[in-house]
């Protein structure tokens, strides 16, 4: 059982051993300094021993001064070694921490949407902060102290044996008790520690839910009850802590007691040996010093065990995260590392075809209006999320030069359709092809590089406006950026800011109004010179006048031959070549503005509603 447990600990720590292997030289140098420093620590007590023995017989003041100076010099050298060992090994653990941070973050960046939908933000955050910290403690301090402990213990025991083997054996009798009790106590501590952690997370869950449902709590006047329930969890937290503490706080005093018993043995037996002239008084004093050198390792050992156990739990949690598959289901032909490579052949077909007909994704260079060879074709697509059907049998086709609009009631599946085109999720049935190639066969990043996307909520980062707009672009083209800002009708407002495009936005772009954020997010999409422009309800917070201007400017935007817009506002979509009306996940109506009006169906009633809303507001 315990062997199995040890094995799993080592397996979990494989990232650390891998790192050590990569930095073998540094680890060895660091360990060498640990060895040197431990060996120096046993010199001073020996000098003391000689000095005291000499004092007992006869000694000149000069000689006494020499011994005193020697103690200082030896400690200084010892200090240099200690400095080196700490500097080398702890610094290395900081580099390990740095690499682990990067590794986790890098992994996170390539996880599929479905992972983030689970809403583990808090957990991921705590993994990258608390857990990495706990693991670094193992990789650095715990490793260093473990070596130090072992070396110092070995050297001290050697010196003690040199003074008197029998006394050494007698003195060391209490020490195995320490090791045994560490093993026994450690298990119990781990058990209670897990219990404490569990209750703690129960407390977090309670708080989280309380805060999310605070409206209900207030309405049902439930505040006191909530407080009571929170108190209850807290009480059981304390109960578990009580059990943990009763053992945990016993450890240190217990070790001190055992060490004390050893010194007692030295005093008793050693004292008798001095009287019987078996050892000198100096040896007696030195023996005490060596025992104290041993005492520190014994205490440190408990501390190390504790750190390693916490570290193992943390390492396990991190490994779970890094084991999350970045491999996305909808990339049928590729695994993790292939995500960027994709299949070379298809990349060429897609890009060659586009280059042939639309050099640089430009609309103006289009050859024939209805070149069907590079159209986007969605046929009989079904999608359900967590077994809730969302889209049902969706089919349509867009040719270059066309604008398609999607409309329909809230939650009818409009945004989901965009997300499928963006390949955030895999659909269960049907197929989407571009230039006759199934989307799954096009490497994801290549595919996304063709799309300019304006999401429903204009998410901006707390970075400069410039960096926000150039998101994902490697070369910043300032002139072109100004052009895009102009098209998005936000250039003037930005130029009025104190640092224009260099202005730093607040968290989630909080310093801007909703309309400004939406226009910036439009500019961001235009910056990519995309082949597709996907606009998901992009004008919801922009007034009609500005929207009108925006449409005018967009019509002269030279890129994005295929445009798809979703909106509930009829005036935003009435000019589209084709309008799809989606209701309950299916296409209910299809046509252009006038044909749809003639149908007197869903589109017609939407149109009427908006007319009347206008009248009511006036």
């Amino acid at each position, binding site marked *: 059982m315990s062997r199995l447990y040890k094995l799993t600990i080592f397996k979990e720590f494989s990232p650390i051993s891998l790192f050590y292997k990569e930095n073998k030289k540094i680890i060895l140098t660091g360990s060498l300094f640990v060895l040197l420093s431990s060996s120096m620590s046993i010199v001073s007590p020996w000098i003391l021993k000689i000095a005291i023995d000499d004092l007992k017989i006869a000694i000149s003041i000069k000689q006494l001064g020499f011994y005193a100076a020697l103690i200082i010099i030896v400690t200084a050298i010892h200090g240099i070694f200690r*400095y080196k060992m700490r500097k080398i090994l702890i610094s290395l653990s*900081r580099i390990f921490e740095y690499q682990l941070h990067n590794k986790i973050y890098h992994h*996170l*960046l390539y996880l599929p949407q479905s992972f983030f939908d689970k809403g583990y933000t808090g957990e991921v955050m705590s993994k990258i902060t608390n857990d990495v910290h706990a693991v670094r403690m193992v990789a650095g301090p715990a490793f260093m102290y473990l070596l130090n402990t072992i070396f110092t213990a070995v050297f001290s025991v050697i010196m003690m044996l040199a003074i008197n083997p029998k006394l050494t054996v007698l003195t060391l009798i209490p020490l195995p008790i320490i090791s045994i009790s560490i093993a026994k106590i450690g298990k119990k501590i781990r058990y209670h520690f897990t219990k404490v952690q569990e209750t703690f997370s129960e407390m977090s869950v309670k708080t989280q839910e309380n805060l999310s449902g605070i409206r209900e709590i207030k309405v049902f006047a439930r505040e006191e009850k909530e*407080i009571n329930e929170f108190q209850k969890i807290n009480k059981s937290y304390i109960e578990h802590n009580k059990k943990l503490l009763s053992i945990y706080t016993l450890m240190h005093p217990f070790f001190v007691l055992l060490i004390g018993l050893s010194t007692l043995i030295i005093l008793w037996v050693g004292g008798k040996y001095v009287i019987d002239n078996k050892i000198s008084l100096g040896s007696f004093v030195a023996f005490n010093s060596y025992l104290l050198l041993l005492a520190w390792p014994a205490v440190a050992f408990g501390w190390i065990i504790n750190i390693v156990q916490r570290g193992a739990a943390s390492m396990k949690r991190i490994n779970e995260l890094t084991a999350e598959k970045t491999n996305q289901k909808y990339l049928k032909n590729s695994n993790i590392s292939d995500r960027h490579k994709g299949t070379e052949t298809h990349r060429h077909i897609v890009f060659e075809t586009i280059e042939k007909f639309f050099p640089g994704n430009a609309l103006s260079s289009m050859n024939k209006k209805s070149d069907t060879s590079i159209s986007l074709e969605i046929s009989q697509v079904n999608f359900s999320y967590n077994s809730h059907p969302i889209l049902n049998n969706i089919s349509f086709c867009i040719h270059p030069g066309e604008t398609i609009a999607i409309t329909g009631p809230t939650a009818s599946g409009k945004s989901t359709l965009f997300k499928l085109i963006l390949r955030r999720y895999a659909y269960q049935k049907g197929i989407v092809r571009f230039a006759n190639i199934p989307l799954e066969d096009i490497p994801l990043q290549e595919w996304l590089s063709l*799309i300019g996307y304006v999401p429903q909520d204009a998410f901006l980062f707390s970075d400069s406006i410039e960096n926000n707009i150039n998101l994902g672009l490697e070369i910043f083209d300032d002139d072109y950026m100004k052009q895009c800002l102009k098209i998005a009708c936000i250039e003037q407002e930005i130029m009025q800011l104190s640092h224009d495009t260099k202005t730093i936005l607040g968290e989630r772009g909080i310093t801007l109004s909703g309309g400004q954020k939406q226009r910036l997010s439009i500019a961001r999409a235009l910056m990519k010179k995309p082949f597709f422009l996907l606009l998901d309800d992009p004008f919801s917070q922009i007034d009609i006048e500005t929207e009108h201007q925006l449409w005018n400017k967009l019509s002269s935007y030279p890129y994005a031959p295929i445009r798809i817009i979703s909106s509930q506002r009829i005036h935003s979509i009435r000019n589209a070549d084709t309008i799809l009306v989606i209701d309950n996940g299916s296409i209910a109506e299809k046509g252009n503005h006038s044909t749809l009006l003639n149908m007197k169906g869903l589109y017609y009633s939407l149109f009427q*509603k908006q007319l009347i809303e206008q009248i009511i507001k006036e």
Partner: protein
Amino acid sequence: METPFLEDLEDYKLKEYDWTILKRLYKYAKPYTRKLVLSLFFLLTASIGELSLPYITKLAIDKYIVTGQFHNFWHIILLYLAALLIIFIASYYQSYTVQLTGQYIMYDMRVNIFRHIQYLPVKFFNRTPVGKIMTRVTNDIEVINELFTAGVLTIIGDVFILAGILIAMFLLNSYLASIVILILPLIFLTSFLFRKNVRETYNRVRFWLSKMNSFLQESISGISIIQIFNAERQNFNRFDELNNEYKQANLDSIFYYAIFYPAIELIAAIATALILFFGGINIIKGIITFGVLVAFLQYSYRFFRPISDLTEKYNIVLSAIVASERIFKILDEPEDKQYFGNELLIKKAPLISFQNVSFAYDEKLVLHDISFEVASNQRVALVGPTGSGKTTIVNLLLKFYDNYSGTISIDGCDIRNLSASSVRKIIGVVFQEPFLFSKSLKENLYLGHTEFQEYPMDKIIHDVIGDKFMKRFKNKLDYKIGERGIELSTGERQLIAFARALSVNPLLLILDEATASIDPETEYWIQKRLDSWLASHTSLIIAHRLSTIKHANQIIMLADGRIIEHGTHEKLMKNKSKYYLFCNHFIQTA
């Protein structure tokens, strides 16, 4: 939009001595003074025990070992053993009591902050992200706990041991003791320099750590944009920069730690050398005994440990101060005044009146001069396009906000003078998107109750939920509802919300688009049950269904925060007014 609760980076800078915060922290420790004093007593006992050990060794050497007398030596052994046992018991008791007391203090703080949060105004929750509050209640309090488990008392203990050693040394030999004293300024200088430099790098570490964390948080919430814009590499590079700064700050602080401990040890070695040299001379001269020399060496060994300990604990104290500052920031948020006020004592369906009510969430008015009355047992329907202010009227009636002008009254009592709880107690509300707790069905239904009574819940389950839906819940009251009721359909969740609202036997029923997103079948079911309830209650209904609206005693039509039409269905339809248009296009006639 309301201004967000932004965290200043200054918050992470450590202030050296902030007495007001320590004083506030002390308030939490005060109820446990007795326990703390007791454990301080045990701490001192343990310290005295520790101090006695070198002295007992001295006695052993001088009286027995050097003189070669072994008779009665067991006295010394017994004394030593007794000291060891005293140390063991006292230090165990001490550390257990202190740490447990720390837990109790954390308990008080946690419950206190949780209680405080319950009574904060709705406004606070609109501008403070849940995650931020979570950190305060959990992590920050845990940091303060460190102050108790590793800090405060041990600091007192360390100081006591230092003083004790000095006294013991002077008692043994004042000449040697004053030589050791000469070393003290060197120690203070070293730890002062260390503290100063470490604090500087420590600030940098915290600064970059918090930058890294907020970048991470933002990356996670904006992950889809990052991935769609192929910005993974770009973002990774930015993270790498922050991570690198953080690493560098840490590496810089290693230097100080790496040099501090050897420096203290060197100073200790100088002390040992001085003791050996001057002590040795005195032994040659026959002024002191070997026992005194050995005791001095042992005392000086114990002297330097507390000093490096003290320096290390410095950071724990500082971070605890920062954490408490952030906790106190929330505790200083004023509680919702609306909880204070008279009790509303009514037994019958009340009369509700709005008089000239205007309201703005921040600057823009969302309600303009709203006046209407709902008589007892009347049903009023609020209609109008989205954003016209219907829900805001409900929010005001529920006393979620108080900065409105005009008067809202229940049975003639101005609700400003009534306590929020007593107003809410007479109201049953069903929201469009009800929040269900991840507990059992039973606990969700009894949300408004203080205890589980079978009546009227049985009747409500029968009347509102019905057998068919109870089957869906496996006929079990302890059916576990997933987090936020995710396992259930909108209709099923809405049913629970209805039952929950009606179970408190409300005198006023508010339905805020309660049936808007329910499938027709469930809606029909709810509708049938509802009509009988509505007849005997005052109710305020925001709805889109003609049958619900038509039977209302009065219909209030809102647009852009203003009442534009007001009257019964027949009257408004006759006028062929805006309501007429609205009905024809917006209202579901089924």
